[in-house]
């Protein structure tokens, strides 16, 4: 049976399609951060969220936190403690409190932060 496209052509088409999809995806919506959708933060909360972004991205992309917004303060307390105890987390007990203050503010003021919407 005759092949209409070769393997090389198929690879190139697949990679080109992925690049186009990536470009569309990257430009189709606004970037989101920890405070997206939340009330205007006071300076200490803004600093707390900057610290959270720096510390969390030590081990994983910050968007893993952003998409989880809306799970509730108790779960965030548990998450922050688990992450603090990860090896080389760089999160001291006092910094864990600061990070949690950011997440608590988001939980309290972000109306759209329901699970699956962030």
């Amino acid at each position: 049976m005759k092949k209409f496209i070769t393997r090389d052509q198929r690879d190139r088409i697949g990679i080109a399609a992925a690049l186009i999809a990536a470009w569309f995806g990257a430009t189709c919506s606004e970037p989101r951060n920890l405070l997206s959708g939340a009330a205007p933060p006071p300076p200490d909360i803004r600093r707390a969220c900057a610290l959270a972004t720096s510390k969390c991205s030590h081990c994983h992309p910050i968007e893993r936190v952003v998409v989880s917004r809306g799970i509730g303060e108790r779960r965030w307390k548990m998450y922050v403690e688990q992450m603090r105890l990860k090896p080389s987390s760089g999160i001291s007990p006092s910094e864990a409190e600061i990070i949690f203050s950011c997440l608590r503010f988001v939980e309290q003021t972000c109306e759209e932060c329901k699970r699956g919407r962030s």
Partner: protein
Amino acid sequence: MILQRAIGCRAVAALAVAALASPAFADKVERNFAGSIQLDYMAVPSEPIGRKMSLDAATVEVSLKVTQDFGDQMSASIKLCVACHGVEVGMAFFDLRIADELSFRVGRFTPQFGAFPIRHDPANHRTSDKPLPYDMGRMLRLGEWNMSILPSPWVDNGVEVSGTHFFSEGLQLDYAAYAIGGPRAASDAVDFDYKLSRSGELYYVDNNSRPSIGARVALNLIRGSTAITAGLSAMGGTYDPDNKQNYMIGGADLLVQISRVFLRFEYLLRRTEMALGTDPGARFKYGAGASGFDPYFLKQGFYAELELPISDRLDGIARWDGLRRQGNVLRTSELRSDSALLRYTLGGSIRVRGATRIKLSGELYDFSDFQDELALHVAVAGAL
């Protein structure tokens, strides 16, 4: 019978995850659920049939994890992974925390070795595949090289003692020590047989009545959004059923984080004893030296990686990694007594929506014993 038991164990594990994640259970207790997925397509344009030297084309990695806290001091975690090898339990353990400086982990887990394994989940690193010292089946010529030095995630049964201590806000010390079943191989082996580490046919138990032991220590210097982590790791034991052939793995790692820019270095080496057999002259490619046949080979690996944000959505990554194997080889091996591989990777990770990313990378393989090859990766990865 064994197949039924394996299916039964997986069904129980799946039911446990489903039960822990069910809404009814959720009303009574607190738990965390996390999951990730990556679908990667690897093309090897320098070869007409890439499968002859790699697991190319599409591969999927899915992980589902549930962690349950039982008060402040105890928690349990279970993680199911679906990848090239089918369904596996990536973790199933209990943590008991006496203090920040003293925790116990018992069950099936990834022991602390090196810096990369904590980021092994594809949602947590920017490239589609892993650095060569930790590669688990995605490198080219994986058969000839018998993969990497310590494939990640290395999942094993055992116990781990660990802890962390902050001497100040800017100085943190971590340690861990563990005893695990360790790598496996059949009798008369010349290297690890990774399939035996995940084979229910031989049961998920130690194969030689002796645990492997290991330890890690890491120092973290933190100042504002800058962090420097330096770590040392070691693991050793025997890997054959007769408890004769030993191995020793050492590692050193350094991470420099400046805001969202990451510079990572890691070096691993493994010294492995081979079974010479009754007639090593017929078995090995190279003859005896002045002091007879050397039963050891040395495998070294490294990577240096720069990850930097290019825009709010796009992260760029440049990686240089390699492997080197020194020592005798079987007559059937295509490697020599001193073989090396260098790989050069350029890539990007584009945040699309939520925690979904598209990863693109190109890799140039420079083999000492084979022609150079090119590999291209396109992947979509997501997490929740």
